[in-house]
């Protein structure tokens, strides 16, 4: 018999759960796929071009920084986190946004949002949301030029080449022809004109349309059902826990129902709040970002509730019609504080860390 070769000092455990970061990231991407494909169908070729431009530039930004930091580029890119960042950003952009919005956003997300903090796991803020908010503040016009859905196979949907023309800004008149407002934007502008919601919304849409997502909105935000299905997949795979989505949606619903019951003419209903804008995407995919959210169950409840509350406040009284991205960033800033004060109780100790009394 051959004696075994001397083993190096390898510490226990000698087993792993068989998962890895790449697999986690790719599963999240897979969960985004149905909503993304639906968005592609809904908004056509310009949306597809925007998606690949955004993800490619996010990956390029990551690769550039890794190169500058003299780190191995390929292994780090293989963790697919840059792909996911770019993907999430693309889903939050107006689907017919010009090419440079996607490129600048993608680069900003990974370079400024992530790598300057030290790369994967080090960033304080969600990179995709950092980029989205930067774009929204810096380029408000293209970032709020929404497009009415024009499904791929419909008569005047732009083809592959036309899509490229639109994305690369050669046919701005097409964009003008299609532009529309999101539900929140519309409600806000009507309110400011003195038209109350009961009148302004009566004509526009019922919640079923929100579910299907067939209306103006960003690439992936509006298909609430598909996003939620992807979120449930992540829950089922135990890649995320229920705490953040539940706390965020419950808080949002709580405030929406309270305010709506006070004055339905001024405050949107619960279903509108939950099924429009980035509520679902935010709850399941953005707020649950591991790196920038607390990692204890109790902390996640606090964090989720904070995101839900801030989203409602910004949507209702803030300067922008949609507030999930701002809410997530604000709560990201609070994550270290939450992590500091909300800790699990250690076995055999009380909440303050003192040993328990002996009861016997």
């Amino acid at each position, binding site marked *: 018999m051959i004696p*075994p070769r*001397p*083993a190096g000092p*390898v510490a226990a455990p*000698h087993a*792993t*759960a068989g998962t890895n970061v790449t697999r986690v990231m790719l599963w999240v991407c897979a969960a985004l796929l149905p909503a993304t494909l639906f968005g592609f169908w809904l908004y056509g070729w310009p949306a597809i071009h925007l998606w690949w431009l955004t993800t490619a530039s996010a990956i390029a930004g990551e690769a550039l920084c890794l190169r500058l930091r003299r780190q191995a580029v390929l292994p780090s890119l293989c963790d697919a986190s840059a792909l996911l960042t770019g993907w999430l950003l693309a889903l939050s952009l107006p689907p017919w946004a010009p090419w440079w919005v996607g490129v600048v956003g993608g680069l900003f997300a990974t370079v400024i949002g992530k790598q300057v903090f030290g790369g994967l796991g080090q960033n304080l803020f969600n990179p995709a949301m950092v980029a989205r908010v930067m774009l929204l503040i810096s380029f408000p016009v293209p970032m709020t030029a929404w497009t009415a859905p024009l499904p791929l196979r419909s008569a005047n949907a732009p083809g592959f080449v036309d899509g490229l023309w639109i994305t690369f800004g050669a046919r701005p008149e097409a964009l003008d022809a299609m532009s529309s407002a999101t539900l929140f934007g519309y409600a806000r502008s009507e309110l400011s004109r003195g038209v109350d919601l009961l009148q302004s919304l009566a004509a526009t849409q019922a919640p079923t349309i929100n579910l299907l997502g067939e209306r103006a909105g960003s690439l992936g935000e509006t298909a609430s059902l598909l996003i939620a299905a992807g979120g449930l997949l992540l829950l089922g795979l135990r890649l995320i826990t229920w705490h953040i989505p539940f706390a965020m949606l419950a808080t949002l619903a709580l405030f929406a129902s309270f305010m709506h019951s006070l004055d339905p003419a001024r405050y949107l209903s619960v279903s509108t709040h939950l099924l429009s804008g980035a509520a679902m995407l935010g709850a399941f995919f953005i707020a649950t970002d591991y790196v920038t959210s607390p990692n204890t169950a109790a902390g996640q409840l606090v964090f989720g509730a904070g995101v839900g509350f801030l989203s409602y406040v910004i949507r209702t009284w803030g300067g922008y019609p949609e507030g999930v991205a701002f809410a997530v960033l604000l709560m990201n800033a609070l994550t270290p504080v939450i992590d500091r004060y909300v800790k699990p109780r250690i*076995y*055999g100790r009380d909440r303050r860390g003192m*040993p328990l009394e002996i009861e016997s």
Partner: protein
Amino acid sequence: MRILEKILGRRPHWGVHPDDHKRPAADAPLRSLPLPEVLHVPLQQHVGNPARPVVLVGERVLKGDLIAEPNGNISAPVHAPTSGWISAIGEITAAHPSGLSQLAITITADGADAWCERVPVADPFALAPEEISRRTAAAGVVGLGGATFPAAVKFNLGRRLQVGTLIVNGGECEPYLSSDDRMMRDRAAEVVDGLRIVMHAIGAREALIGIEDNKPQAIAAMRVAAAAFGNVQLRVVPARYPMGSDKQLIQTLTGKEVPADARAAEVGVLVHNVSTCAAVHRAVRRGEPLVERIVTLNGGALTRPGNVLAPIGTPVVDLLRFAGVSERPARLVLGGPMMGIVLPHARVPIVKGASGILAFDAAEARTPPAGPCIRCGSCTRACPMGLLPLEMASRIGVGDLDSAAGLGLSDCIGCGCCAYVCPAHIPLVQFFSHAKGELSARERSRLRNDATRRLAEDRAARLAREAQEKAAANARRKAERDAAKAAVGGGSRLLSTRIADTTSEAAT
């Protein structure tokens, strides 16, 4: 919180559920190892001081003869695992990844395997509890679950603290291992008799046997064996790692939580492993010292995995040969994969705490490279102690050991759940054991420095005192001298005055 727990059921919210890999080894019948030619019996097979040899090289011994006596309060004697002669007393490689050596007594077997004289006891329940402790201690029985704490010391502790409940640990939550499972299936009567003897020894009113639900045959066998005794109850617990850890098993079975820095006995329970109970039965009823144990042989590199009854001191290589090695094992592990240690080579002997020898093939031994932490929180959810492994590791990573200690590093039981689930494959347990070692070294050096400083201060104080005394003595002497001078020289002062007078006269 309690209500929530009731609604959601008692499913433990801690730990992990690794693939158990227990089959087919667990289902293979228990085999006896052919007697090895040479046995290396280490003197340190328990926590506490190593035993002191009481035999000389060349001496003949019978199976069960005392070859080393306990050395100190928390120590255990060592007995000859077979008959033969002492061929060496010297250093061998310890069962430790460092490959450092330890003292061992080497016995060359004569093949007869002849027992020494054993003194059986017909009715152990007629003995005084102290006598049971004494017999258990003399038989060298230590905790066979891996902790190897001398069993009798625990009995005495339990008696002193008037423990009401004995918890019998049949959890065996480590993947791959099935030695306790086999023990319960094949020797349930011995286990139950042993645990009743332990109850008698500590004066416990009841015993709870906790067995994980992945061992149906062991549960059935133990149920039959325990049926006759009303104060012995069998409880099926969910298979969840680390259910076999004292604290988690106590909480699952009794709902009690052992306070930090306290012992289980202080909340009225004592935990003993099933194999330890069987060893107590043999020690007390049959007068047999602990000289053999059931060892699980498992892992992808073995052709006939299973459980064997092996004498203590058997070189691992003999066990591997018996189990058939299909390929060169990529890693040898003593114990289970979650907490076991890597063996430096196969000539290391098995010890009392060796519940299994795992020979991993290349696939099982593959260690994925570590990546950056993505703060996914898997480790936090898995930790059975409610710690924050990722926070502690990041503090340790930047050398801030004190703040890691502040996060509860000392409460870490090293079970490995965190590292098991980590998607970035960060060797968290390594971080923690490094930091624990560093902190205890720092504590030791702090104590040493304190002692040195105290000595230096004492010395300075003594020197100061001496100097003061000397000064005082000098002053006193001077005063005495002056006084003496004053007594003699009342005249001398007169004389000088007179001279002065004359000079002044002369001047005028």
